[in-house]
């Protein structure tokens, strides 16, 4: 469901910085449907990749074979990302806060963590530079706390300061796609506001899984359930081994 919803966000011809897992599924679903000319860029250096299998890692050899360009990682980060060429970036995270700030570093104290997570990878710079960022994360209270344990990737406001004041070129996280509904950033306050819910989900369901007092838009959209075509592609063609689909 999240993959199908994320795929609908992508327009034909857009340049997408693809992370592994659900974002990769979403991008390949979009390519199979409304956006055949989506340009997939992986931080490993593959540009215009057309993977013939679902890549397990963002450095899979199937991303290279038949791609338009392979470049060094210095070029990926300087010439593509920092240059502003990435139109959409996908991020996930162990914790997401009310402004779309993300923690992928530690649960607990940085010096003595309860759980050590992988860290930033390319997420910090994707959050700064991608023209817009889509966050994909399952909704639960631990994943959407009032306070992050660590701020790895910047959202709409960091410690009271706006992206503009902090000098960030990209628009930052504009949507959070969850398994119960969609949050969108308020253009003025930057706060993530519930704007759409999935069929069969109530606003209370969503609010119960968010650690702050979630704002809800007056007019809530209802997310269209995945179509037969979307589900068939996801289940039988894109992830037949159910590596990423639950």
């Amino acid at each position, binding site marked *: 469901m999240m993959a199908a919803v994320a795929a609908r966000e992508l327009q034909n011809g857009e340049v997408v910085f693809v992370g592994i897992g659900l974002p990769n599924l979403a991008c390949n679903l979009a390519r199979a449907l409304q956006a055949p000319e989506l340009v997939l860029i992986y931080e*490993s250096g593959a540009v215009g990749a057309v993977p013939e299998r679902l890549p*397990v890692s963002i*450095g899979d050899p199937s991303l290279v*074979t038949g791609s338009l360009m392979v470049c060094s990682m210095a070029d990926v980060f300087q010439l593509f990302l920092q240059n502003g060429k990435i139109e959409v970036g996908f991020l996930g995270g162990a914790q997401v806060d009310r402004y779309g700030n993300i923690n992928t570093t530690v649960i607990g104290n940085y010096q003595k963590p309860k759980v*050590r997570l992988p860290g930033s990878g*390319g997420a*910090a710079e994707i959050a*700064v530079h991608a023209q817009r960022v889509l966050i994909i994360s399952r909704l639960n209270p631990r994943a959407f706390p009032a306070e992050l344990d660590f701020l790895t990737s910047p959202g709409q406001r960091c410690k009271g300061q706006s992206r503009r004041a902090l000098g960030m070129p990209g628009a930052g996280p504009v949507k959070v796609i969850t398994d119960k509904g969609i949050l969108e950033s308020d253009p003025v306050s930057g706060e993530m506001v519930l704007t759409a819910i999935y069929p069969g989900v109530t606003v209370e369901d969503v609010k119960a899984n968010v650690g702050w007092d979630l704002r809800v838009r007056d007019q809530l959209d209802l997310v269209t359930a995945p179509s037969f075509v979307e589900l068939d592609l996801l289940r039988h063609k894109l992830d037949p081994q159910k590596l990423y689909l639950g």
Partner: protein
Amino acid sequence: MTKVVSMQAAIAAHVRDGDTVVIEGFTHLINFAAGHEIIRQGRKNLTLCRLTPDLIYDQMIAAGCAKKLVFSWAGNPGAGSLHAFRRAVEKGTPPLEIEEYSHFGMVARMSAGAARLPFWVMRNYMGTDLPVANPRIRTVTCPYTGEVLATVPALNPDVTIIAAQRADQNGNAQVWGLLGVQKEAAFASKRVIVVVEELVDESVIRADPNRTLIPGMIVDAVVVEPWGCHPSYAQGHYDRDNDFYVAWEDISRDPAKLEQYLKDYVYGVKDRAEYLAKNPGLTDRLKAKAQVCAGVNYGF
């Protein structure tokens, strides 16, 4: 004069206790054979640097080689955690210092090292806790615009180990497929070991000079080690062993299983040939299919 030596000789000569060591390769061309030899030779107090520590640094941490880890993403992509790393950081068994950047930060550190500049400039880290956790992430003011930009310090390793599809005996090495940050890491380093799938005549290199990633003049030793990157991969030679990456989640979660893995596949073999002999069917399962591109004309 050839620079070709055995892996044992290369590690013995160029990797010393206390060194800052880089084994690079972003998913592609991670040289596990070199890491295993470092474990076998019992190196201690190493500062291990890499964007993604991957399974090989998890094994080196478990084996007690590492004093410190410098990195930007420490996970097992698509499969889970690096549990030896996590035990070290979460429980201190064994103790491990860490110094942490983002990918761009690590790439920039190696770019600065390769250019012999003391720092590199980037637009990054504003608003985040990364500079709080790591005070080596600093800022500089642009002399033209007054803008404040992030900086990272140069990384200049003692030794960098790079895998390549092919090189000549002087270490002129050619790579295709993902290039990662290998060129920058090698140029940043005091010593360089190149490990290749295939040793070729200099004429093969000279026939297609645009493919050369590492020039022999910066290379100290060339090791010929087919399948030296397994479970990582070499484009055009063999596929990534995704099954082993998945299996590592289970192995590394249990210290006893991890110890047994090291006994069987690292300490228990004397070199890569014996490692391959212990993995029957591996080469058949992972051997690359042929998809050869056309050449281009270098004439004038």
